């Protein structure tokens, strides 16, 4: 069984899709060199006509991708820092996302926004440590946060093939992980959750790098409780069916995700569960604090991130009710 790293999986997805589909092209800073690892070798394989190093003009090249997409390309745009999405929020939320409805369906904008190294980078401080996927979900941009190499491969493939804009976040804390792969890699549909572990007492919904954390916690708690762990894989759209079935069955919910608490992804899951899924006891969220800005010093950085201990306590708390 070959081992596949998370970065290699993203790289492979780009490589395969570029080979399969002439229209796929890549824009971003230092993408020819492959600075983030994800685009390594692609310029050599496909030429600098399709893998394009851009100047530091995020706004213009994001909308350039929009124009190219309308004109028939399938651009992938790489951003070196998650907070660069703030810089191009207008271009994504107000231009690319809206084009299809505003033109009455004349054209859509099949662009993939790729964000390697999202979330805390351990010591990169306030402006390099955000995890802003909830913002994209709020405005309605399809958004994936793959938790494993094979999901990274499959979701990126689907993102590129989707006729709408899709954002793909690759959390920093997963970039170094690997997975044994048996069988072929394949596309993973957007909006399909993955149940990583079945359980009967409580449903844990975990996102991105917190999926392995949740699995570890579930294993550690195995004697105490039967914990179901579900990864929604895309934070928008959400696979409400899979989540709903699980939560209705267990009646208990803990959601752990790495965005700010206020109006974050966790809020949406808890709210929908409360409205629709017949919770037996109040749900719990584990998240960053409201309005979090990640401090530089490592111990302060870590103090603000959701972790295994907090999750364990949250699970125990909902089981106690």
């Amino acid at each position: 069984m070959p081992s596949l790293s998370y970065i290699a999986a993203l790289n492979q997805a780009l490589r395969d899709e570029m080979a399969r589909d002439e229209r796929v092209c890549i824009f971003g800073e230092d993408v020819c060199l492959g600075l983030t690892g994800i685009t390594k070798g692609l310029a050599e394989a496909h030429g600098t006509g399709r893998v394009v190093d851009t100047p530091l003009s995020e706004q213009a090249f994001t909308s350039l991708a929009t124009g190219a997409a309308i004109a028939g390309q399938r651009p992938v745009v790489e951003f070196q820092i998650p907070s660069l999405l703030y810089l191009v929020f207008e271009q994504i939320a107000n231009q690319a996302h809206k084009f299809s409805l505003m033109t009455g369906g004349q054209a859509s904008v099949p662009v993939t926004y790729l964000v390697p190294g999202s979330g805390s980078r351990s010591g990169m401080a306030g402006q390099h440590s955000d995890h802003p996927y909830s913002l994209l979900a709020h405005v309605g941009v399809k958004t994936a946060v793959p938790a494993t190499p094979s999901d990274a491969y499959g979701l990126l493939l689907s993102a590129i093939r989707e006729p709408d804009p899709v954002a793909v976040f690759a959390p920093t804390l997963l970039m170094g992980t690997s997975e044994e792969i048996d069988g072929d890699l394949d596309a993973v549909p957007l909006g399909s959750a993955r149940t990583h572990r079945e359980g009967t007492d409580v449903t844990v919904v975990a996102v991105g790098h917190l999926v392995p954390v949740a699995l570890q916690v579930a294993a550690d708690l195995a004697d105490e409780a039967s914990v179901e762990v579900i990864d929604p894989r895309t934070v928008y759209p959400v696979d409400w069916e899979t989540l709903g079935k699980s939560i209705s069955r267990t009646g208990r919910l803990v959601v752990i995700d790495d965005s700010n608490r206020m109006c974050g992804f966790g809020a949406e899951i808890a709210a929908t569960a409360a409205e629709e899924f017949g919770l037996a006891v109040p749900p719990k969220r584990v998240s960053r604090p409201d309005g979090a800005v990640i401090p530089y010093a490592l111990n302060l950085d870590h103090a603000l991130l959701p972790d295994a201990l907090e999750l364990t306590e949250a699970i125990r708390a909902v089981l106690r009710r």
Partner: protein
Amino acid sequence: MRLIREFEEHCLEMAVTGTIVGGIHPYIGQEAVAVGVSAHLRKDDVITSTHRGHGHVLAKGADPKRALAELYGASTGLNRGRGGSMHAADVGLGIYGANGIVGAGAPIAVGAAWAARRQGRDQQVAVAYFGDGALSQGVVLEAFNLAALWSLPVLFVCENNGYAISLPVDRGLAGDPVRRAAGFGLTAAAVDGMDVEAVAEAAGRAVAACRAGRGPHFLECATYRFRGHHTVEHLMGINYRDEAEVASWTARDPLARQRARLAPAVADEVDAEIAALIAEAVAFAGSSPGSDPRDALDYLYAGMVPTRPGA
């Protein structure tokens, strides 16, 4: 030009009656720009337009019937009534949309040009229209750099009508437009935007150079809007331009100037043709149905549609 003028005159009335909701940004006075530029555009060339987009869209060949129907919010409109004045588009004709955000179209045009070259459509050009106000918008300046850097076939058309809403250009812009554009490596020139033949000549040179692979061009067209920034301005009774200034520009009405160059009989014939077209458009738009409100989210996504309702 006459088509645009009459189309807009009708729109002004309909904005007052409320048939057209949200008001419009009238293009009246600036017609020579869109018409002069479009004289050199082919169907597969791309344009991106602005909040003041009717002229650009019609000059590029959009059907006046469907353009008007769009403004009426009809399902027969260019955008099926979903876009209205500020988003009117006809992607099949290379019209990648008016745009409600100043400057936002410029990089989209650059992207279209990039794709054309990538796809081997070497002769194709993309035109980005924008106003003088947009010259202070970061994304436009970034777009200049990308187009010049990659030597893309883009014509940037700056319609300098002297104002960004109430802000006179000399209180919004340090330096002058041509010099600014040239600083990015664009081949830049200025032209009298009130004379359709002058615009056509300058644009012709620029478009030909773009098609010949000689990189992006910038054309500043000195022009003037005869009306307020937006129809709501008339209701508000605000005023920031002095009468003499307005009069000096209306005296240079591009339609009157062009009419003077035509044989009166020819001009009359054009007028009659346009009147018929407008009448046809009004009839078409007026008799077109709206959309079912249950379909309000149609077209939100082209792929999988995950949306839940609000209640």
